[in-house]
């Protein structure tokens, strides 16, 4: 049975934990709003871009002269997995769910005799992937110094990927990130970015004149497309991270509250027991006289 003093210290410590988780939840809520706004603001570009690129890809895709970024290298032997996670912890199952998906994919590919290479973005994912796939890790992108995600962060990652692709380091590239559905639901997603895959364009688009040629534009746009897709994924991930942290911290705050209630009841009971004990001692002492 813990002493009264022990109980008192525990209650105080849980109370200060609750204050911290509450504050973290509020910070996450504010950051989430900003992350969502950024994702919202980036949407028009991504949509227009994919529409134009999709149309172009559909008209050029079939020909032999199609760029490698679109048609692929003709093999799928070497697979690059880009695992995007957060730089900080305390965000519930956010990182675990991405890593789980990536690990399952990696294990499946290895079982099928493919070569797997892994590039990690974000410290947390690296730590977790390292345990099982240390030999497959070929690089890491550190975003911990980045205060505000910009397009140039995505461009740097894309540049790295493209130079690796040009030197023939891999055939297929897939990115793993969390899609933001709501504060309580983030869906881990795998998306193949090299060779590029597009959804069929809907409806009829007008017949465009192209300047320079269709192939020229496609060759110019595909590398940008990689950066655009990575940027969209980074933004989704950032919003998801804050959402996951917010609900994790909300749970933690509630649990701390429950715990304080329980401990307070225990504290009061033992306090009463102590008083009763003292009374019994005094009374029995008086009777003995």
């Amino acid at each position, binding site marked *: 049975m813990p002493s009264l003093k022990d109980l008192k210290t525990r209650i105080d410590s849980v109370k200060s934990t609750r204050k911290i988780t509450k504050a973290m939840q509020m910070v996450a809520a504010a950051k989430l709003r900003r992350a969502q706004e950024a994702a919202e603001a980036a949407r028009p*570009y991504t949509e227009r871009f994919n529409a134009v690129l999709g149309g172009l890809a559909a008209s050029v895709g079939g020909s032999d002269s199609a760029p490698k970024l679109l048609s692929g290298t003709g093999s799928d032997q070497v697979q690059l997995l880009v695992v995007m996670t957060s730089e900080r912890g305390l965000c519930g199952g956010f990182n675990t769910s991405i890593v789980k998906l990536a690990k399952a994919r990696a294990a499946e590919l290895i079982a099928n005799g493919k070569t797997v290479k892994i590039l990690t973005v974000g410290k947390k994912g690296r730590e977790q992937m390292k345990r099982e796939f240390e030999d497959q890790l070929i690089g890491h992108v550190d975003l911990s110094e980045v205060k505000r995600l910009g397009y140039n962060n995505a461009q740097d990652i894309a540049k790295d990927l493209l130079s690796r692709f040009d030197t023939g380091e891999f055939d297929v590239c897939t990115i793993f990130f969390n899609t933001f559905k709501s504060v309580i639901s983030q869906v881990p997603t795998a998306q193949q970015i090299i060779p590029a895959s597009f959804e069929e364009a809907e409806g009829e688009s*007008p017949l465009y004149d192209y300047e320079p040629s269709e192939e020229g*534009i496609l060759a110019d746009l595909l590398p940008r497309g990689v950066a655009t897709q990575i940027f969209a994924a980074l933004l989704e991930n950032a919003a998801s991270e804050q959402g996951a942290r917010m609900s994790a911290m909300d749970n933690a705050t509630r649990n701390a509250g429950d715990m304080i209630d329980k401990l307070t009841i225990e504290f009061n009971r033992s306090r009463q027991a102590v008083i009763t004990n003292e009374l019994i001692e005094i009374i029995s002492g008086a009777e003995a006289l």
Partner: protein
Amino acid sequence: MADTMQFDLVSPERALASLQANSVQIPGAEGDMTAMPMHAPTITTLRPGLLSVTGPEGTETYAVTGGFAEITAEGTTVLAERAYSVDAEGKQAIEDHLAEARAAAESALPEHKDTANKLVADFAHLLETMV
């Protein structure tokens, strides 16, 4: 014939402008072109240059570094990789880009040398016209 059309300028990070315009001068990869309402549908890539939009409220000019433009009869959409306003801040940014392009041209492989040098020239020209 309508005398204005919808003009949108978007960068990956946000939409920069959305307004009615009479004409839009675009720094196309193969030369400047001016889009007006009822222009034939065209898609062109951009080189670093000045993009100027003339609307009922006057002319707005932006410095863009690259990207592409989609022109249809009803409107023009410019998807710029980066766009700056023409002021001291924008000039500083373009100067940085120029330095970066120069460094890239130095280390470029022989087969990419021409493209890299052209990029440097385009940035240098843009910087001059911004003065």
